[in-house]
């Protein structure tokens, strides 16, 4: 194995660790309860037939074993804290530590969602402040913080569209979705009872206006558009797109997953968007957590406001905040309580840390980083669209496929080079996509290492393709058999099972 060009990583010892169940032994404990200050009760008397007969076979371990277990496991993960994590569309930016601190303050982390408004003014103020600032950032008129993630925001947004159209007398049947869209878009439309109609891209990787004109009609509720789209391309004809939709009574939904390209530089509310969601876990720095929690606020224009989920935080003249449930046209709730409040706290802390100038510089750096990578890597990798891109760039594996190397292989080889791979094979409009989003959080040094790694892999594709096909070779485990996993799924551990 010739890894002389690998400058970013070295191999080092890494602890093995079994499943936590495999450490269990009867009588080990990691807890001690307080002494009971009330009389004990007889559980059989209390519960009768509802008494549990057999204890759940949870592991029996001590505290140090728990610490070691999750410490060891953690060291097997790659993370933003380790280095560049250029998953396109995911905006893997730095997660500021002060966010974590303020979200854990007693009066914040310990607040019960049903405690009275009198003693919830702090929580309500946080939600109100965040709502106000997100409205200013998006240029929209109103917002709900209730959705728990991007897809949940989409659901909420399309429900708003539907409710609005119904109030106009016709919910319509279809939603148009570009072929470059994220899978959550069609899945969402379907959940709201809409048929999905594909809208093709033009040769510049943008919405094909003629196709849109042709497909837009009274059956179409609207268009779900990501802008910049998943190719990283700003839809330059956004005004015309909105106009076509609006002219025929449709609405423009914007998937705001890519707002990291726009914050403080352009506002969807200014370019015709009716309703959109934000991903606080992308643009606003709340951590991805290995797959959540996120938060997907939905902002809309005045005409959709009556339909927002309830409750909404409102402020009295004297500055007292309360929850307004009296919203007769509301689509109802999309989640119990008020959404992922802890993420609201973090997103607000991020906005406060940045201010207007910081947010602008952030967006500029995100776009700068992506364009730097594009410039350095074009030629080495095929660029399907010549159109300028914003915060991410999508290459194709066209040049490498000829050598038998696919985007997924290159991704695995990047692991050996010390990077988390880009997003693989998405968007589907690009052949074997390599979707790269560095975000603003990458130093020049890290970008240059990435460029070197990618170029080096491209060279390996020519010189020693087997290196790539056997990648990764420097990890604890080699490539995993996903087919076998799906063929005969083993989804839980069992004592007398597999080891």
């Amino acid at each position: 194995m010739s890894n002389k060009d690998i400058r970013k990583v070295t191999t080092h010892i890494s602890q093995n660790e079994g499943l936590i169940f495999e450490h269990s032994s009867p009588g080990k404990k990691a807890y001690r309860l307080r002494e009971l200050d009330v009389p004990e009760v007889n559980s059989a008397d209390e519960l009768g037939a509802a008494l549990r007969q057999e204890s759940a076979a949870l592991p029996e371990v001590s505290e140090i074993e728990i610490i070691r277990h999750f410490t060891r496991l953690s060291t097997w993960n790659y993370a933003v804290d380790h280095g560049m994590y250029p998953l396109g569309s995911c905006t893997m930016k730095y997660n500021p530590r002060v966010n974590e601190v303020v979200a854990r303050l007693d009066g914040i982390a310990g607040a019960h969602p049903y405690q009275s408004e009198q003693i919830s003014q702090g929580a309500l103020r946080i939600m109100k402040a965040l709502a106000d600032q997100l409205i200013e950032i998006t240029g929209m008129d109103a917002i709900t913080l209730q959705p728990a993630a991007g897809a949940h925001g989409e659901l909420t947004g399309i429900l708003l569209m539907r409710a609005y159209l119904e109030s106009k007398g016709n919910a319509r049947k279809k939603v148009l979705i570009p072929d470059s869209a994220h899978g959550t878009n069609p899945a969402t439309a379907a959940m709201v009872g809409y048929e999905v109609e594909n809208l093709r891209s033009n040769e510049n990787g943008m919405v094909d206006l003629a196709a849109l004109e042709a497909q837009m009609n009274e059956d179409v509720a609207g268009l779900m558009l990501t802008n910049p789209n998943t190719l990283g391309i700003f839809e330059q004809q956004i005004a015309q797109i909105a106009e076509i939709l609006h002219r025929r009574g449709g609405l423009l939904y914007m998937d705001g997953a890519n707002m990291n390209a726009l914050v403080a530089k352009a506002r969807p509310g200014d370019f015709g968007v009716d309703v959109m969601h934000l991903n606080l876990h992308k643009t606003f720095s709340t951590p991805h957590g290995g797959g959540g929690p996120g938060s997907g606020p939905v902002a809309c224009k005045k005409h959709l406001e009556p339909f927002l989920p309830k409750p909404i935080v409102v402020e009295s003249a004297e500055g007292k905040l309360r929850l307004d449930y009296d919203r007769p046209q509301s689509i109802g709730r999309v989640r119990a309580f008020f959404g992922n409040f802890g993420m609201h706290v973090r997103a607000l802390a991020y906005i406060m840390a940045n201010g207007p100038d910081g947010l602008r510089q952030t967006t500029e750096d995100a776009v700068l980083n992506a364009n730097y990578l594009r410039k350095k890597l074009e030629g080495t990798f095929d660029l399907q669209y010549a159109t300028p891109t914003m915060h991410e760039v999508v290459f194709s594996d066209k040049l490498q496929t000829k050598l038998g190397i696919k985007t997924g292989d290159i991704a695995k080889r990047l692991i050996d080079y010390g990077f988390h791979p880009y997003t693989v094979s998405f968007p589907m409009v690009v052949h074997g996509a390599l979707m790269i989003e560095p975000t603003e959080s990458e130093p020049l040094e890290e970008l240059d290492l990435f460029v070197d790694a990618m170029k080096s892999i491209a060279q390996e594709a020519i010189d020693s393709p087997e290196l790539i096909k056997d990648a990764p070779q420097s990890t604890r485990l080699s490539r995993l058999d996903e087919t076998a996993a799906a063929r005969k799924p083993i989804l839980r551990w069992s004592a007398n099972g597999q080891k």
Partner: protein
Amino acid sequence: MRYLPKSPAEREHMLREIGVGSIDELFAPIPAQFRLTRDLSIPRQMAESEIVDWFRARAAENGSGYDILLGAGAYNHYRPVVIDSLISRGEWFTAYTPYQPEIAQGTLQAIFEFQTMVCELTGMEVANASMYDGSTGAAEAVMMAIRITGRNSAIIARSVHPEYREVIATYAKYQGLPLTEVAFTDNGRVDLAALDAAITPQTACVLIQSPNFFGTIEDVAAIAEVVHAKGALLVVSIAEALSLGIVRPPSEADIVSLEAQSFGVPLSYGGPYAGVIATREKFVRQIPGRLVGQTTDRNGKRGFVLTLSTREQHIRREKATSNICTNQALIALMANIYMDVYGRDGIKELAMQNLAKAAYARKALGAKAKVLFDGAPRFNEFVLQTEEDSYEISHRLAAKNRIIGGFPLRKFYPELGNAAVWCATELTSRAAIDAAANEVNPAAGSNALPAEAPAAAISEVK
């Protein structure tokens, strides 16, 4: 801006390399009329210490240090400190969904463990990685039942958390899925006869909650019998996961939707929490969300991967089982750690303490006002009916005793009059319960419950 790792010279260098004269050129694709030429009107950049101060001030407005006798879907349990200590490692909280298993085995193995524990607790065979929360999980469970059965309506027990019912209604409304409600009886449980009558050949599922919103434990087996007899599925929603430490698991259910907040997740004014859906193996291809499965690498070593992803939006798009993508992984990790801390015996002992505290509270408050729904077992919640308006009582308790009282039911159950659902957990002190008892009906005089067990002698460390 202190998060940005660039010096002015580096920015200049990069622009030169790209071949543009200024950063503005990179924003040229945005039509000029849409480019923002002013500062956003948001507060100026703040120092870290200012941010901390601002949130401390908000935290103080929220007031902390209250005794919480309130549950209603969000439970105040002690959070072992190892949880935050562990999840604060960047390797956990700054990683993405484990798409690249070779560098995400930590997350994958942890989810696999979580899935196993949820199966153990609920008596189900498979569980997913997580849903947003208990309310959306319940809604997704109903949709799952609809897919499984090919039927298109659902019955929801009126004793299910009212906000869960609202969420289910929102999800169902625009898909043309009729929902009907089934009532509860005098003992707070689902009215079996009414249920039997309500199920039609179009009923995909019946969704109940146990312990239900009143704290009453449903007779799941009996309900299952009625439901299954009509070819419908039974979905059991559980908002108080800790109940499973001592309460019979709903093994007769077809789908269980669990809210895991009780397992080490901060109240955090309602979120983030974590839902999870568990079911029978035969339904696994209809389950929404992520699933982690065991497999091997090229050398035969055990490893874990995301699996059965053909159910999911990124593969199946509009035909996916759900649109869910980002879920609540880090919260599921908290719950995993919590279950490890308590383990087999601890979870039971802890549940026993909740049972005892709630029994005491029921007696203490019951001596002053009327406890509803006697006649069926409860876990750590119960309903108290008072002469006085429930909100008045809560306000007085908060102001006078720094106690957060029960959840007033009038808004959702006007038929119950001045009633509220109260909760006592291991963190509820006897003193707080006694104080609350004295306030729920001041006219009745001071609490006269005999001090059967002396307050536990906590050794004075001095």
